[in-house]
């Protein structure tokens, strides 16, 4: 009985002493604030901030004396929380969403050839610049949808990528993944976009796509401040996004879309409901 107590106690005691010494030798200095910051982050490890994962970002926040980069998925809310933890002045972020600047799905845009290779846009682009006749349109093989850490991108039946304005956090991973640069980060409150990415001339575009921008200037004539035409492609001036209304209505190919009125054809996303600014009638 006594032998049992002493020997087991002895083993325990020596182990405790050894571990106590080891704990001192191998102590890892960790800042409790780093854990607190890490907990407020979305945890998607998307890398949009430019640091390796959320823990890398937390480490940067704690080691510096100011915020060197914002966390796009976290947005204003998370930045304020982090500023609270660290005692920094909060920095303001402009929430952004990614937009696929194309509506030419397989029903609306013609194909150059039938692609039967690996289901990946980067691979398809390497084969004679992609299966679409349009040099700028969405190929619809879903590379962006697979890379999105938030599941915000869906592929329609007719192979068009559509990004949910509610799920998208503006991390920009899809923008980098698209071999044709069809996707663009835009301000969240600007809901109207020219959904075309082809700089071809109108006559040529009409031959392969029924919903492309033909640079007819009609949008610009109806809302001069809200649109610019560059290199045969119209673009919304996002500073004047409230004045785009007349252009949307008059566009002959319907390539300008106001997302407040719904997503491109074939999308299962419900029209966005949250905080849409009213359109100003010019």
């Amino acid at each position, binding site marked *: 009985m006594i032998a049992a107590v002493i*020997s*087991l106690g002895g*083993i325990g005691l020596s*182990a405790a002493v050894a*571990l106590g010494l*080891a704990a001192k030798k191998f*102590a890892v200095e960790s800042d409790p604030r780093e854990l607190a910051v890490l907990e407020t982050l979305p945890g998607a490890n998307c890398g949009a901030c430019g640091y390796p994962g959320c823990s890398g970002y937390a480490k940067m926040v704690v080691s510096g004396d100011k915020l060197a980069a914002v966390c796009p998925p976290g947005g204003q809310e998370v930045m304020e929380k982090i500023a609270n933890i660290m005692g920094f002045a909060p920095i303001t972020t402009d929430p952004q969403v990614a937009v696929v600047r194309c509506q030419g799905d397989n029903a609306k845009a013609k194909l150059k050839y039938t692609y039967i290779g690996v289901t990946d846009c980067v691979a398809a682009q390497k084969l004679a610049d992609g299966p679409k006749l349009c040099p700028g349109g969405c190929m619809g093989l879903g590379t962006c949808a697979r890379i999105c850490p938030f599941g915000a991108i869906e592929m329609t039946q007719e192979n068009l990528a559509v990004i949910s304005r509610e799920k998208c956090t503006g991390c920009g991973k899809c923008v980098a993944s698209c071999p044709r640069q069809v996707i663009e980060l835009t301000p969240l409150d600007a809901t109207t976009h020219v959904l075309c990415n082809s700089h071809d001339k109108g006559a040529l575009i009409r031959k392969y796509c029924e919903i492309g921008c033909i640079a007819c200037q009609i949008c610009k004539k109806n809302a001069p401040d809200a649109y610019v035409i560059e290199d045969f492609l119209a673009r919304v001036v996002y500073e004047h996004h409230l004045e785009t209304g007349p252009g949307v209505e008059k566009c002959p190919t319907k390539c300008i879309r106001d997302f407040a009125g719904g997503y491109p054809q074939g999308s299962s996303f419900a029209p966005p409901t949250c905080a849409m600014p009213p359109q100003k009638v010019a």
Partner: protein
Amino acid sequence: MIELALILISAIFVNNFVLARFLGICPFLGVSKKVETALGMGMAVTFVMTVAAVVTWFIQYFILIPFNIEYLQTIAFILVIASLVQLVEMVIQKVSPVLYQSLGIFLPLITTNCAVLGLAVLNIQKGYSFLESIVFAIGAALGFTLAMVLFAGLRERLDLCPVPKSFRGTAIALVTAGLLSLAFMGFAGLVKG
């Protein structure tokens, strides 16, 4: 010398702890998604096993038997193993935070890894001498690491394969583990052990 070599070979291949004795299955399935993590886990277990074999051997023959308290074997061994795991945990957290993160829950789980306790108890049951038990521990640990790394390699390749939907995830991992065990059965009869 031949005795020792036979113990080593037997522990690595013929009576592989994971694939023939099915000890230590949980880290085998849990941290075998990447070869690097599997190797890290193998190293951690190798260290714990070898040191545990040494310490438990001393405890058995210099404390438990002389004082006639062999009935305390299990708790005494677990105490030793748990302290060792704690030590390994500290070292890994200091030396390689990345490995520490990827091992996650499976690192403290080495404490109750039946491969480690099984080794300590088997050493006593088989009546191995001090040298023999060290060799047996190294062999068992190498066998564990070998099984882990082989399996992780297979799983890395499986990730790139079109696995039928109903097989995906744990199901295909277990099927693969079974096939790997089948392959190791080919060593049966090589050494009696």
